[in-house]
């Protein structure tokens, strides 16, 4: 048998009709008669809806002025938002103390910035600052006495500031709470497991609105005479417990997706339970459930508007309150559009951040 040498076939470029702009249009918009028809229909709908929407929102809208007379009625009247903006952002927080909120927001942006950038030496200090120092600073700034500032009652808090406070406390509290509940539910110890199952199933089984209502109206009835604590604090505790139950189930899904071999490998190396969980299992499980966690957090962010049931005026509720002001009757649409925009900006940012996080934590092959 004679030996032959195999010469590999050279790589050829793909056919030109499948690349470039033409190739993209063909593959994505006009790949079949039906898809072509849908593409054209889509374009027609955009043509139909977009110009009037833009006209109302931007081109024919009223931007300048300081009272109702500035509104001419053709497009949106953003003067309403402009005039009431402080109320939407800070609620009834005294005007001369609003710098405290602004400072807290500035600190959050500056303090957390390194976390959103590529690997840099400030990441760790920034994380520690946001985790431990910031909550205390924000608490001090918002309430006052801790820093020797005048006291601002939580009943005066409102607007976006209240929305953000509830959402951030809810998120920051429910994540560790949820992780602990999820681990507890998978524990081999029957008492811990049953306690966690009961907590999760109870809090997941009641509507948030009921939780808030109970915390505000019912709880004081059970507390001894004279013992009373802040309404907002009660609502926050309710929100954290409620969200913990949801996060727990999301995290449990991630824990169950980790192959048994990972637990065994961690055990075989001599890692004890906290180390095996903290170093091996949770980093992988949490990465897997980022979409689910962020989903829950976005839902929480929007659910904060339910605090109206206990008389707290968050972003949406202060807009609603302004819209029924006799001086500004008829401008609710502008208010709701503004509210939608604000909620969307925050929720969309969370969504983008989670996607970036997923990409950064991806270590395997993309197949």
């Amino acid at each position, binding site marked *: 048998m004679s030996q032959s040498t195999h010469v590999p076939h050279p790589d050829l470029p793909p056919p030109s009709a499948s690349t470039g702009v033409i190739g993209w249009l063909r593959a994505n918009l006009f790949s079949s008669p039906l898809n072509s028809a849908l593409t054209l229909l889509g374009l027609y709908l955009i043509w139909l809806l977009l110009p009037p929407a833009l006209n109302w929102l931007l081109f024919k809208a009223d931007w300048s002025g300081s009272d109702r007379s500035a509104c001419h009625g053709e497009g949106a009247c953003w003067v309403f938002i402009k005039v009431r903006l402080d109320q939407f952002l800070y609620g009834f927080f005294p005007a001369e103390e609003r710098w405290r909120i602004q400072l807290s927001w500035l600190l959050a942006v500056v303090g957390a910035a390194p976390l959103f950038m590529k690997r840099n030496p400030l990441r760790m200090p920034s994380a520690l600052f946001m985790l431990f120092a910031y909550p205390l600073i924000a608490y001090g700034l918002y309430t006052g006495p801790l820093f020797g500032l005048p006291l601002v009652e939580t009943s005066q808090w409102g607007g976006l500031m209240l929305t953000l406070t509830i959402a951030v406390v809810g998120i920051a509290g429910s994540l560790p709470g949820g992780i602990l509940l999820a681990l507890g539910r998978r524990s081999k110890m029957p008492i811990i497991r049953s306690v966690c199952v009961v907590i999760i199933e109870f809090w997941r089984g009641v509507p948030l609105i009921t939780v808030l209502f109970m915390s505000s109206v019912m709880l004081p009835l059970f507390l001894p005479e004279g013992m009373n604590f802040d309404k907002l604090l009660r609502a926050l505790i309710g929100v954290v417990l409620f969200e913990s139950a949801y996060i727990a189930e999301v995290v449990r899904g991630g824990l169950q997706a980790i192959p048994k071999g990972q637990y065994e490998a961690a*055990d*075989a190396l*001599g890692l004890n339970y906290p180390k095996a969980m903290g170093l091996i299992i949770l*980093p*992988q499980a949490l990465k897997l459930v980022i979409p689910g966690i962020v989903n829950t957090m976005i839902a929480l962010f929007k659910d904060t508007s339910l605090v109206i049931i206990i008389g707290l005026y968050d972003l949406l509720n202060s807009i609603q309150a302004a819209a029924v002001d006799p001086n500004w009757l008829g401008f609710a649409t502008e208010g709701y559009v503004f509210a939608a925009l604000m909620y969307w900006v925050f929720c969309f940012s969370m969504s983008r951040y989670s996607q970036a996080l997923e990409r950064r934590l991806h270590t*395997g092959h993309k197949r």
Partner: protein
Amino acid sequence: MTASAVTPGITDKVMIEMKGVHKWYGQFHVLKDINLTVQQGERIVLCGPSGSGKSTTIRCINRLEEHQQGQIIVDGTELTSNVKHIEAIRREVGMVFQHFNLFPHLTVLENCVLAPIWVRKMPRREAEALGMKYLERVKIPDQAKKYPGQLSGGQQQRVAIARSLCMQPKIMLFDEPTSALDPEMVKEVLDTMVSLAEDGMTMLCVTHEMGFAKQVANRVIFMDRGEIIEQNDPQTFFNHPQNERTKLFLSQIISNH
């Protein structure tokens, strides 16, 4: 290479002692009266049909499985439900799995240094030097910064071996280390194991690689239905099997290869 190529560095020190070990999975009796003494430096191959309890046997040695009856003493410490004892034994017993079980969220080097740092409390710098030493030993130091998902199966299994060695164990357990590999990668893993055996590591290996058994083992154990049927030195075991069941098994293996 013949069996004599491996220098027998077996000492009198007993590393593992299993006395009358029984185990059940529910009603199913997986291990029946296992008695096994392993001396320091011994290289033992466990073979047998699937479901015969060979994996379960070695998994009992580091308590990945719990035995319900009998005694297992590893390096002088008895395995009971005492968590401190279990952790102490796991520090001294390395294990290599069929499916590698590398940690996919950590780089190859991080996989290797994790346990030395967190279990042995070794400073990171020292642990990394150790990790690189063992990655060189399994011949993949150049992959240290990659993630397990970027390596071939054979490379992953060698990383898994290096990861175990970084704990500087006294005993190594191999649970079918080549069964999940493509044929062309089996050799690189077996070569690593042979070199480990030559260094006098106490090894228990569940494998179907009879060539490896002949070359490296000083004792081959045949298990069937949860019992040790026969154990002997490889020459006697392969050339003059005593038990009918062993003969049948060996004839099946040879006709398959």
